[in-house]
């Protein structure tokens, strides 16, 4: 029994006072004199550029696969796992096969739902777009751009709570992208080798794994939800491994985002014949 219970002082209604005068000038949005707007502006620019490029790449529906004709087995991460009916041109190259036979549009439009959902609900990206696009707030100590605010308590923002389910799906996608990276060592008609394309897909898969594993939901599921670490030694060890990665979640989010776009661009340039995929050995 708590002291308050013993004293019989609960439940007791305590008022919160609002509307009393506050100090400082009312008319100014902020008194900050530094260039606080640079960070949200850069974030908005990079995110907008990525979205523009991803939209362009997703609607292309071609030049996402470098196949046997060029003695390569490279697929863009935007189009993998290539499960749509419209993806049959690469059937046989990938062990997952075709099971979204209803889909006749660009396969990327179906596939990108998962990474988009994962990043949209990611705790870091939430900060990034709330600040840079939604202006809520644009920077610390700078007034919110909206008159009312309910945060993530209502639809649609309450849906952010599904983040861990997007994590599960993103981890499955990472398995597929790892398979793609392994298949990139295969040079049809030439045996096993290693090219710049192989390196690109390997680095991309590695970055996506590290970014996904460093996620706050992953940290929670692996051990964060436990109160007695001493009784769950394996989960504690996992939590200890993920915690330093989690501290770099922002950097990993950016690096993996930029690299996945660069990977698509590289495959696209090779597939369209603009550049040649240099074979290292």
């Amino acid at each position, binding site marked *: 029994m708590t002291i308050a219970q013993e004293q019989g002082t609960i439940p007791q209604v305590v008022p919160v006072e609002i509307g009393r005068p*506050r100090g400082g000038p009312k008319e100014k949005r902020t008194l900050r004199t530094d260039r606080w707007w640079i960070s949200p502006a850069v974030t908005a620019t990079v995110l907008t550029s990525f979205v523009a490029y991803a939209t362009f790449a997703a609607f292309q529906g071609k030049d996402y696969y470098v196949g046997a004709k060029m003695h390569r087995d490279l697929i863009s991460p935007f189009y993998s796992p290539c499960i749509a009916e419209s993806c049959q041109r690469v059937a046989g190259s990938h062990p997952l096969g075709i099971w979204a036979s209803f889909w006749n549009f660009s396969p990327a439009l179906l596939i990108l739902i998962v990474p988009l959902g994962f990043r949209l609900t990611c705790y870091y990206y939430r900060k990034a777009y709330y600040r840079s696009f939604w202006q809520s707030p644009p920077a610390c*100590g700078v007034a919110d751009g909206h008159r009312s605010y309910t945060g*993530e308590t209502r639809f649609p923002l309450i849906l952010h709570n599904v983040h861990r389910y997007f994590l599960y799906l993103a981890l499955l996608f990472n398995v597929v992208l790892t398979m793609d990276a392994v298949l990139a060592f295969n040079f049809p008609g030439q045996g096993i080798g290693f090219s710049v394309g192989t390196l690109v897909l390997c680095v991309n898969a590695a970055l996506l794994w590290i970014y996904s594993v460093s996620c706050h939901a992953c940290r929670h599921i692996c051990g964060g939800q436990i*109160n007695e670490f001493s009784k769950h030694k394996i989960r504690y060890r996992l939590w200890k491994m993920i915690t330093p990665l989690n501290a770099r979640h922002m950097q990993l989010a950016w690096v993996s985002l930029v690299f996945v776009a660069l990977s698509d661009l590289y495959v696209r340039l090779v597939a369209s014949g603009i550049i040649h995929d240099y074979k290292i050995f």
Partner: protein
Amino acid sequence: MSEVTMNVWRGDSNGGNFEQYKLERVEGEVVLDVVHRIQATLAPDLACRWNCKAGKCGSCSAEIDGKPSLMCMTRMDTLPNDTITITPMKTFPIIKDLVTDVSFNYVMARQIPPFTPGDPEPDGTYRMQQVDIDRAQEFHKCIECFLCQDVCHVIRDHEVNKLYYAGPRFFVRLASLEMHPLDTVDRRALMREYLGLGFCNITKCCTEVCPEHIKITDNAIIPLKERVVDASYDPIAWLGRKIRRKSKTTAEEAYELAPARVAPTSLDGIPATAVEN
């Protein structure tokens, strides 16, 4: 010797304005030193709250050039401008000059069910492993300067949310209790329904201003949000509870253990204008 102009907010609940004080720069000073020199030489009636001058009491919180900071921990030579603006914390009602009424925080502190251990060991003591309590040590560094509360836009820019939002400082407190190996109270529903955890949109300003460098968002708020997901939004966790026949504590049950309570819940959906009127 160069000069500095201090633009200090002077006023009370009836209104106020900036007053300028020109002083010589003295090497090694912090902002609080300059405020003390203003009190000693130019404006003896300037009100400011302070105590330790070592960044440990959390008394001298204010906004320096628009950034919530401790005056005693802000060195003058780190401020690039020759005119420095000092205002009281914006989130709380003004008392006089740089002094604000932070009693909102004490009201919110009373909404939290305190540490409630289970039965002790047969010898009457409690035991826990160091590894179990390490994580909460970070939260105990909090000096209650309330800069995190001040910078949080949920109540800074939308004062009506003070009715149902505890704020970052108290999410740190809740995290230290929820993660404690000996504590037995489940506060997850309470955090969701009454203490407004869902209002936080994790923009990390609380972490940016914390003078104790507590990773408030990453280590306290997000883990709490994930625990609330376990309790309220995860169908697999719900199924697990059903199979193991475990029930979760309701918000009302947890609230019964709190020293006090405020009336509305964050889920009441009271229109902001109706409350403000």
